[in-house]
């Protein structure tokens, strides 16, 4: 099995999971991406195979000469094994949509693994940066710098009224989507998520759970992002989002404190049972593992489990996803083998942490 690509990534832990980052008790990561197309070439869906391959070659070569990015690896989709693709996706470096493409589509990953250029997915180019905790500005500075440098070398499709022209009209204008991945167990356990979704809708913010809408969010993790890309500057969008996200961080902390004060046993039950299943379970699906690890993370953030801190729980969440898990095992595993190996990995990790539940 050839795993060169993802092994290269896994040499470094997931760079955007830092427990010490700003507001990281609630916000796991912040992400900004820009959609760009080169002028004079049809968008990837209508471009000839030859055009797509030439563009991939051109931009991946160019990336090696830029200051704003120093490529750790350049990968064309057909070069990636199934496990590679899963690991890249779990690290948010590529999308499922990119995996479905062939030659001429791929990704350039920066040394830091928190900056990447996605080539010939829906648009010719997507520039993306992720930063730990709530810090959209840091992610914006990185994509902005790379975009500026690219603009000195290539001409982007741009209209003076409509802005940057993108394959999908939902991205036209700035081509920018800024998002935060938020852990909202306090609001979820208090039944407040529908209200958050409604408020988000009114404020032009999309709230998505794991599988899209509202309630089905694995581990109470939600992704919130701007809906509109036209009619507002990038800096204004980011400032507006950061303001709203900060409010939401405050609401979540408040909800957690409330639960701790008024429904303490219920809360301890959630955290304690999660610990029990993780510490003593022998079969865990990735969904179950993520759910329980997120509950454990809540307990750690609230300090209700003596000796347990949030350090390492984020890394463990990443490590038990199907791609990373199989990379850790060094071979492809069936569904039930994965469940067993996942449970073992977690048992050993928690045993090493030497925690006793309250």
């Amino acid at each position, binding site marked *: 099995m050839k795993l060169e690509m993802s092994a290269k990534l896994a040499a470094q832990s997931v760079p955007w999971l830092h427990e010490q980052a700003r507001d990281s008790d609630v916000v796991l990561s912040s992400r900004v991406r820009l959609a760009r197309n080169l002028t004079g070439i049809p968008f990837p869906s209508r471009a000839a195979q030859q055009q797509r391959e030439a563009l991939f070659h051109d931009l991946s070569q160019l990336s090696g000469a830029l200051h704003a990015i120093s490529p750790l690896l350049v990968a064309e989709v057909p070069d990636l094994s199934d496990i590679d693709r899963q690991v890249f996706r779990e690290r948010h470096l590529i999308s499922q949509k990119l995996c479905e493409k062939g030659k001429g589509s791929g990704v350039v990953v920066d040394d830091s693994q928190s900056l990447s250029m996605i080539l010939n997915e829906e648009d010719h180019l997507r520039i993306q940066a992720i930063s730990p905790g709530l810090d959209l500005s*840091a992610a914006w500075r990185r994509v902005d710098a790379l975009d500026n440098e690219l*603009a000195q070398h290539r001409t982007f499709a741009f209209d003076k009224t409509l802005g940057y022209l993108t394959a*999908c009209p939902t991205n036209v204008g700035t081509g920018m989507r800024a998002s935060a991945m938020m852990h909202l167990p306090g609001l979820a356990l208090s039944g407040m998520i529908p209200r958050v979704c409604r408020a988000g809708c009114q404020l032009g913010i999309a709230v998505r759970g794991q599988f899209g809408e509202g309630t089905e969010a694995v581990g109470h993790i939600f992704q919130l992002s701007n809906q509109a890309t036209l009619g507002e500057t990038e800096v204004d969008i980011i400032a507006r989002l950061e303001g709203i996200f900060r409010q939401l961080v405050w609401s979540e902390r408040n909800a957690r404190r409330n639960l701790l004060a008024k429904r303490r046993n219920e809360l301890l039950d959630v955290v304690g049972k999660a610990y029990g299943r993780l510490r003593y379970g022998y079969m865990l699906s990735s969904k179950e593992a993520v759910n329980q690890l997120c509950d454990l993370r809540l307990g750690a953030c609230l300090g209700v489990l003596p000796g347990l801190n949030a350090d390492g729980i984020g890394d463990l969440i990443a490590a038990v996803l199907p791609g990373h898990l199989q990379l850790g095992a060094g071979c492809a595993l069936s569904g039930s083998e994965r469940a067993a190996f996942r449970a073992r990995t977690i048992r050993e990790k928690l045993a090493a942490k030497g925690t006793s539940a309250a």
Partner: protein
Amino acid sequence: MQCEACQLKPAEMHVKKVVDGTIQLLHVCTECADTNGLDDVAPGTLEAAQLMPHLADELLLADHAEEAGPNHHCGTCGLSTEEFRSTGRFGCEKCYSRFGDALRLGLSRMHRGLSHVGKTPRLAADSNSAGSGRQSRAGQLQEELARAIAAEDYERAAAIRDRIGRLKMTPPGRHSGCAAP
């Protein structure tokens, strides 16, 4: 209910997935969900953009029916109105002017106005390396400052603050169009 994938085990998970632009509700057992990557934690499976085909009809408004009729094609990439309706995606930059008038109202509903006010390629290219270098240097110093304050190293913090002050005083070589927030 049986799992729709293996037809053997009971379906325990009900997940929404976008298949070719339409939302499908899948009833699967946890193992099949695992195998098919339906239960990984990559969020955003249901991007607003994936709903575009449903919005395309609304975008191409009835009063522009003729212009946006099924036989209308983009002269550059050949994308037809029908194709746009089915995928919600344009084929090239010229599609925006081909289908543009029909799009206007739809775009104004979807966005915050009809005029781009953000950065432009010209300003981006003009923000010369000195300017952006200066910007990132200031950012770095700000981070160093925050670290120094967190470590209660106030002497160092004061020195860094002075350096940031000096950096801000020096006029940039050329105007940078897109200052970081």
